C-alpha cells in the first residue's frame, strides 16, 4: 500500500514535469521587455538635442500621452518607421519626443532634413547611457506613456501599420 502511494506520487511528479516542458516548448525562448508595461518611468534626464537644457520627468507630464522614439541615422529600420512617425505627428493628444541615439549631430540633421522632422521635441543620447533609464536594448524602440509616466505600450523594433493604429486607438479612446 505504501509503495503504491509512492508510485503514484512519483508518476504524477514526472507527468507534471513533462507537461511543464511540453508547454515550455511552445513559449518563445527569446526575451523581450514587454513585461515592463504598466511600470512607471522614474528619474528621467535627457539632454535636449540643440539647446542647453535637460528634459526631465516634469516635461513628460505636459501632454496626455507621449511617445518616446529612440532612433539614429545609422539605423536602417529607423528609416522604415519614419513615415509612421510623421503620420503620428498630426495627432493632437500625442506628444512625440525623439531621442537621437549614439549618433553624430550632422548625420542626424541630414537624416531629418531628408525624411522630415516629426518630433515635437528632440533629445540626444550620445553615449547611450540615458536610454538605459528607459529600458532600451536595441533601436529603434518606442515607448508610449501617459501623463503619470506609466508605460502603456512598448514597441521593440520598427513601428508598422498595426502599431500606428494601436497608438491612435489608445490615445483617442480615453
Amino acid at each position, binding site marked *: 500500500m505504501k509503495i503504491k502511494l509512492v508510485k503514484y506520487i512519483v508518476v504524477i511528479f514526472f507527468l507534471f514535469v513533462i507537461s511543464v516542458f511540453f508547454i515550455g516548448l511552445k513559449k518563445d525562448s527569446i*526575451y523581450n*521587455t514587454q513585461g*515592463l508595461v504598466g511600470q512607471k518611468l522614474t528619474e528621467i534626464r535627457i539632454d535636449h538635442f540643440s539647446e542647453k537644457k535637460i528634459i526631465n520627468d516634469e516635461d513628460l507630464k505636459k501632454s496626455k500621452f507621449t511617445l518616446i522614439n529612440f532612433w539614429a541615422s545609422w539605423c536602417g529600420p529607423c528609416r522604415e518607421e519614419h513615415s509612421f512617425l510623421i503620420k503620428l505627428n498630426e495627432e493632437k493628444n500625442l506628444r512625440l519626443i525623439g531621442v537621437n541615439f*549614439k549618433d553624430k549631430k550632422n548625420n542626424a540633421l541630414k537624416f531629418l532634413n531628408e525624411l522630415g522632422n516629426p518630433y515635437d521635441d528632440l533629445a540626444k543620447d550620445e*553615449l*547611450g*547611457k540615458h536610454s*538605459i533609464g528607459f529600458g532600451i*536594448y536595441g533601436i529603434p524602440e518606442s515607448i508610449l506613456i501617459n501623463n503619470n509616466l506609466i508605460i502603456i505600450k512598448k514597441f521593440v523594433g520598427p513601428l508598422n501599420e498595426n502599431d500606428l493604429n494601436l497608438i491612435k486607438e489608445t490615445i483617442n479612446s480615453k
Partner: protein
Amino acid sequence: MKKLIILFYFLISTAVVSTEKNLVDINDVLKNLRCLVCQGQSVADSNSDFSQTIKLVVQDQINEGKTEKQIYKFLKEKYGDWIVYNPSFNMINSILWLFPYLVFLVGGALIFLLLKKRDYR
C-alpha cells in the same frame, strides 16, 4: 603542539579579516548581468552595443558610490529580473534556493537512520 595550532588559527583569522573589501569590482557586477541581445552571454563577455552601454552605466554608478545590490535593483527595474543571473530571494524563488539544501538534509538524515538502525540491532 597545541600552542602552535592556536597560533595558526589566529594567523589565519587575521588573514581572513584583512580581506574585507569595500570596493565594488566592476567585473564581478558585469559577469552577473545577462546581455539581452546575445545568446546566453554575460555583459562582461559580450561586445555588443548593448553591453558596451551597460558597462558605461555600471561604471558610472560605481563611481557614484552605489552598492552592487543597488545597481542590480536599478537594472531589474528597467529590464526585468531576466537581466541578473542571480535570482533574488523571494517567496517563489525560495524553492530554487532552499530545495537543494532540503535534499541535502534529507539525504544526510537517510544515511544517519540507516546507520543507526544497524547499530541498534
